[in-house]
């Protein structure tokens, strides 16, 4: 007879670490590629495994949501919408934590597996990104911490500047391989490294 819940209650598993496989596991091969002119123009790395959640404020709760998220360094993803990203958390842990912290204030959806975040950094990072996005990436217009929803090579990209010369590009998992092939090709002329 049923031992486990037949209704919708999350199975109580404390921070289980499970063997997640990145869709770029066989694609993002480490090494030095493209033109060899001294230091690499950019360095790519795949941030995996990662916990990602979308947070969308409920009606009239925009401010409350922003306040509740202050400590999470939320990434803007639309009016009253954010991505929250965390590293080193167990399966579903961030989602559950946010869900309880934001109960009645915002909707939370787990996207940890649905999106792949590619980090790109280095002196030529803006030149590479300019081949894809129409967003102005000058530091005066797009400082560290700012995010934008954009499109590169026909793929929707959530882009965040995480440092002076460092950006993170979040794409749907299904497009990640195709996008990886495209963006690394755009970096070939500057020489790139995959870490």
């Amino acid at each position, binding site marked *: 007879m049923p031992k486990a819940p037949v209704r919708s209650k999350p199975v109580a598993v404390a921070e289980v670490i499970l063997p997640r496989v990145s869709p770029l596991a066989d694609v993002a091969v480490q090494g030095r590629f493209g033109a060899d002119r001294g230091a690499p123009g950019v360095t790519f790395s795949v941030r995996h495994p990662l916990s990602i959640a979308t947070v969308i404020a409920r009606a009239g709760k925009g401010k409350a949501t922003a306040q509740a998220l202050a400590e999470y360094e939320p990434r803007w993803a639309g009016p009253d919408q954010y991505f929250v990203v965390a590293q080193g958390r167990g399966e579903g842990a961030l989602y559950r934590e946010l869900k309880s912290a934001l109960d009645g204030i915002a909707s939370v959806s787990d996207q940890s597996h649905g999106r792949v975040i590619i980090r790109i950094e280095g002196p030529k990072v803006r030149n590479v990104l300019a081949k894809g996005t129409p967003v102005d990436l000058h530091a005066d217009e797009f400082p560290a911490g700012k995010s934008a929803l954009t499109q590169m090579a*026909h*793929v929707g990209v959530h882009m965040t500047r995480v440092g002076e010369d460092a950006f993170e590009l979040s794409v749907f998992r299904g497009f990640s391989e195709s996008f990886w092939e495209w963006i690394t090709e755009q970096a070939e002329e500057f020489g790139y490294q995959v870490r």
Partner: protein
Amino acid sequence: MTSYRLSSGGLIDRTASLNFKFDGKSFTGHPGDTLASALIANGVHLMGRSFKYHRPRGVITAGAAEPNALVELREGGRKEANTRATMIELYEGLTAQSQNRWPSLDFDIGAINSLASSMFVAGFYYKTFMWPKSFWEKIYEPIIRKAAGLGTASKEADPDKYEKAYAHCDLLVIGSGPTGLMAALTAGRSGARVILADESARLGGSLLNEREEIDGDSGIAWADGVIAELGSMPNVTLMPRTTVFGWYDGNIFGAAERVNDHVIAPSPYEPRQRYWRIIAKKAVLAAGAEERPVAFGGNDIPGVMLASAMRTYANRYAAAAGKSVVVFTNNDSGYRTARDMKAHGVHVEAIVDSRSESKADAGGVPVLRGRRIADVGGKKLAAGIELDDHTHIGCDAVAMSGGWSPIVNLACHRGGRPAWNDQILGFVPPDTGKDFIVAGAAAGRMLLSECLADGARAGTLKGKAPATPKCRDEAFAIAPLWWVKESHGKAFIDYQNDSTAKDLPLAAREGYRDIELAKRYTTTGMATDQGKLGNVNAIAILAEATGKSMEQVGTTTFRPYYTPVSFGAFAGPFHGHHFQPVRKTPLHDWADELGAVFVETGLWMRSSWFPLEGEDWLAAASREVVATRERVGICDVSTLGKIDVQGKDAGAFLDKLYCNTFSTLAVGRARYGLMLREDGIVYDDGTTSRLADDHYVMTTTTANAAKVMAQMEFAHQALFPELDVTYVTVTEQWAQMAVAGPKARATLQKIVDGLEMNDQSVPYMAALEVTVLNGVPARLFRLSFSGEHAYELAVPADYGNMVARAVMQAGDEFGIVPYGVEALSIMRIEKGHVAGGELNGTTTAADLGLGKMMSSKKDYIGRMMAQRPGLTDPNRQCVVGIRPVDPQDRIRSGSHILKDGDRPSMAADQGYVCSVAWSPMLNMWIGLALIANGRARHGEVVQVWDGLRGHKVMGEICDPVHFDKENKRLHA
């Protein structure tokens, strides 16, 4: 061959030599040369043949407007036809071929057209190829097509890469002559983000071509100083070899950067060209002005060129256009050519000035005032001239200047029309607003000092414009002269298309009095140079012929592209492998391991069938169906759209979106939903589950996932903003697999953690949150598209392959098979489930047999419009089953249904077959069809007529559920 290279001067590097070939002959030039200047320096003046008469032609210009010296550059896959020799930077190993000639440039059979030139007047094609009508398609058009065009395209693939990129700036400066440099310098010094773009390899614009004096130094030295300063500013980007070709909405400019056109092949990893979209807060058009030819007999003979081109070749490239020169001008600028050529040691016979007076400095060259050149002698090289008073003067080169046309093209790309200016005799730009400023010669300023001041003003983004450097001005005065009517020979207006001055009055006489009509009738301005040289002359001649003013005639429409842009640049990297992105499901690797054949579904790659050795698609799909129905199968359904719907009004929102009700759905249960468009037609369907009071997960069809999301955005924002609801796509978060068949439960039971699966714990339409494989979170739905006892299992995507492999292992003892979308489709047709073929944008819920789903207790999108008489007509086509009367027959999708005995006609049409499949369970072809009043016609024998394939069989209308009508298997 005599050298026409001047012994000193020029911006060429004489210490290095470059070898190149033109029509197979070897030559040498220097870095800094263009192909045109190197050919001139080598004494090669004949560079091409004209389009219609195949007349021998040399260069007319030294720049972007060149209509004559068009060549095929490079060979093989890199060959580029119709490339302007004046714009090709010379490089080591360059090869070029002349075009539009046979067998050779020197002896061209096609020149015989010239003998029949009285026939080839304006409108020749329209007049000649009219009769007999039947000749057009088979005879005339192929001949004209063959004769048309200049160079030939390569049939090989281009091996090079092309790119696209975006740039942003406070100020985009287009053109790097005195105006552009001054604008860029002023803005750059103020700290603004500046982009300076110029089509040439070397910045400096006209300062490189002329002998100017600025700040007590040469114009070139001043330009080099400014460029060095700009180059040192981090806020300034210099873009040489970049043609800004268009001005678009939002102050966005298109530009083509020729990154590697000046080398034999790009270095590895570098593109040949880059297509830029430059988003400019402000922009300055400092494109300068284009000199105009004058129409006189033989104004196209090699050796005749624009006066500015002749001095550019001498000043910039140290190449003399001839040994003995005559200058013909209607304005002061022609005098510069005479003085410059003389300074370079070239003999100048005379200046022929059409005006009776001029204050310009002839530098000691004799001036024949009030005279005009009527005709130029010679065929492949100018050999003397005859004036309108029949005086003969010997020479081998003629410099002509008919005045200057401000390069207003970009300023007119968004619809503005230029205005005629009687002072400078040129069209000046329209009002382009405050964010796009036309400055310098492009705005009709003819003095250097005016250009510098204009540039400084345009580059001043705030505050007062700075003082400009002192310079020496060359006075400018002009009197109209368009056409020397005393000419005997052909006087060309549009060189490339061979339209002559006489063609325009002819066009006017024949009724083509509007400039746009005259253009098309005479082909003036329709060549690759798009009338940059000849259009103003054409307008003037048409104005005279029609008794109108220049202003009244006006110009033709200026459109992008300013100069031709290669297809490669437009395509950028988006061809071949990158034509569109590929979207892979989280179960892709699992399916691939099992030998799946993938099919593109939108961008998705879906596993279509899993062939065993020797199986074709039908054998594989049939085997997969039988195995699933007899035992158990697993199918990747991850592509279905999944949307997380949350909030206290989530249920109310779904009630608006779907025609049936979801607010009453119990937590832990799923329900099939049908969505209508506002017009009452079915939009999409799918299963939506309730995970918590304020949390649903909706599924959509693969094809409509994004569209449904957009519909939700619209519905919430525009129609029901009062609802407290949020929605976000979670399609990619989940790997989802259907596990179907009599052994589905037994298979899944082996991997689901701590849940005894039975009809009570997991009833039909259950939607549960569980874990599998010791802790992998999962959602378990008891749903069926196949009609079997079936489940859908969703796990976070990174675990997808692992879990699917585990399901395969668990089902091994039962003989599990993977099945693809082909088998899925066969099974749904066997069960009469509707899908894309039936949800095709023409059907109502009732047409699909789902009319009862339309709630009468609530409002929803599409409700009102679905009640229109046309949508409730009982005679509408509705979904029925169709099967052949003779089970050996095959029915085909798309076939039309006709009553027995009727002949095919629109009136007799009863409907059509929308889905067919070979049913391995029934051993025959079966289908679903949309047939008028079909539900009342079960059992009727009809013709299934396929006009496309010329195929007709007899079919029987039947219930859409072909297999397991009692739905026993679903609950087995």
